[in-house]
């Protein structure tokens, strides 16, 4: 049965149903409702909840809880995610699973609290020190945010890696009908690495320190092999009216919703344009974008930033066709009537 859910609360509920055992958070608009929701629910369910002193605190609590084998999550918005980058790097280096929700807002600096997508670089390209990419999933609706939240825990555990749900303030605040999945049972599990006390076994260590260069190199090779496996197996995207498209719009999250409407309008004007929407921002669907670039005449990228995913699109397109860009940077969602003229310009530019 579908129910109306606000994005932040829906993600919180989805995490609970995925078996979230420990949540650590810090208030920041526009994700505070997620923290508030779990501040009620987690204690009721006898699960761990702490409102920490900072996002540095939350991510390191996640690091601790995840090292203890628990399904752990934190959530924040852009400036808070910046603070977490140190911890994210440690979690990746130590290979413990963790889920992070980023309700992106406008930056840089304090920026504003309105929806933005300018965390693309810091989320997909590493963000902290060292060689790594977290898995980054970008929902465009509340239902998809719920589904990806559940999936995020599975991916995090499968790869012992950080998975970030990259939404924006718009998705956090929006209410939409949602089909909530059934709650999962939390099973006691020992996967051979979690810290539970060395009872009748050798002691274990969760660490990211490898002092010998050759040992660190090997450790990094292992992480890189994992990244390649993620790139092979976890690419996700969604397309709309791409079958006969002569032009493509590439956008993610809320920008893709806006592009979807603009594309519908452009089709009504006889323009054969479709939408390619990366759902996994890392791993980015380079191969699919390359295929698209072989059969369309031009591509428009729409983002709520100055052109961050644009760079990945260009890598995929490899200059086969022109790529143009439309971005808004005020921490705001563009309207479809801004995107439609960009599609028309794109068409005119190649005629």
């Amino acid at each position, binding site marked *: 049965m579908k129910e109306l859910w606000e994005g932040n609360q829906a993600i919180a509920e989805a995490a609970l149903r995925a078996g979230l055992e*420990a949540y650590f958070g810090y208030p920041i608009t526009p994700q505070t409702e997620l923290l508030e929701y779990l501040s009620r629910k987690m204690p009721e369910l006898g699960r761990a909840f702490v409102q920490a002193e900072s996002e540095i*605190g939350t991510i390191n609590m996640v690091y*601790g809880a995840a090292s203890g084998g*628990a399904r752990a999550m934190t959530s924040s918005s852009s400036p808070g995610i910046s603070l977490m980058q140190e911890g994210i790097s440690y979690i990746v280096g130590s290979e413990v699973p963790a889920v992070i929700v980023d309700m992106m807002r406008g930056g840089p600096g304090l920026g504003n609290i309105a929806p933005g997508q300018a965390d693309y670089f810091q989320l997909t390209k590493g963000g902290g020190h060292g060689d790594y990419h977290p898995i980054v999933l970008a929902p465009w609706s509340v239902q998809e945010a719920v589904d990806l939240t559940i999936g995020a825990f599975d991916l995090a555990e499968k790869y012992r890696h950080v998975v970030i749900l990259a939404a924006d303030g718009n998705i956090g605040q929006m209410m939409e009908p949602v089909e909530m999945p059934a709650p999962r049972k939390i099973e006691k599990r020992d996967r051979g690495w979690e*810290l539970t*006390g*060395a009872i009748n076994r050798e002691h274990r260590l969760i*660490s990211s320190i490898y002092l010998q260069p050759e040992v660190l190199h090997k450790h990094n090779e292992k992480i890189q092999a994992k990244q390649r496996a993620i790139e092979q197996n976890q690419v996700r995207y969604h397309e709309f009216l791409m079958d006969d498209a002569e032009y493509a719009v590439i956008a993610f999250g809320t920008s893709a919703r806006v592009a979807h409407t603009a594309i519908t309008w452009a089709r009504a004007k006889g323009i054969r344009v479709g939408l390619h929407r990366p759902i996994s921002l890392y791993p980015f669907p380079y191969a699919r974008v390359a295929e698209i670039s072989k059969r369309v005449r031009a591509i428009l990228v729409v983002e709520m930033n100055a052109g961050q995913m644009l760079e990945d699109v260009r890598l995929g397109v490899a200059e086969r066709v022109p790529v143009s860009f439309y971005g808004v940077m005020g921490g705001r969602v563009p309207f479809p009537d801004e995107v439609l003229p960009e599609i028309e310009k794109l068409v005119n530019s190649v005629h």
Partner: protein
Amino acid sequence: MLTDDMQVVYECPDALTDVITHYCPGCTHGVIHRLIAEVLDEMGIREKTIGVAPVGCSVFIYNYFDCDFAQAAHGRAPAMATGLKRVHPDRVVFTYQGDGDLAAIGTAEIIHAAARGENISVFFVNNAVYGMTGGQMAPTTLPGMKTTSSPTGRDVELAGFPLRVSELLAQMTGAAYVVRRSVHDPGNINKTKKAIRNALNVQLNQAGFSLVEILSSCPTNWGTSALDALKFVKEQMLPFYPLGDYKVADSAKSFIVG
């Protein structure tokens, strides 16, 4: 070979691994490690203990203890320990932190762990200097004390004053047991061991946050002999960092000895 007329009076605690440590000659980290290990053995809690290692000289503490360990980011051990303890409330979780880790970069984490009354134990080793990076000024460096980043001595006009951590944390309602000890002579070593035991006992009885600050020596970075370093602890550090029980909350009193 042990014969009938011999008895074991000194051996490696079960909680320590049979590994030669990397600590400099004369450093008291080894003494403090041993005290913790002896207490884990005596209390029979080695198997249920999870340690959290800091960044600093004692970064490799996990190599020396035969118990589960996590390696925290610099200063974040209390936050990491919070995560571990909250998902394993029936385990014993302790952090082992130096003064740079705890009293500079990790100040927010330690204060809030204490304020929350987080049921963990913290062993805070104060040697008034950044050891691992080669002897720079620490938040606990004494006024006038020379370090590689205060070459003419800590000038309080420029660098401000040292932090007295035990006095600070004793203000926290959530802190159950906060004491300062020293390991500069055998009598104080014994007192330190008792305090370590008290701290862990407080945790085992869910009485709240416990911290033992331990004044320690660093002959290498102080540029002294091992013996002179212990003398420095006694003569220079003790007056500035008086030993004592700074907080024994009512909730903790029945779990404290001595």
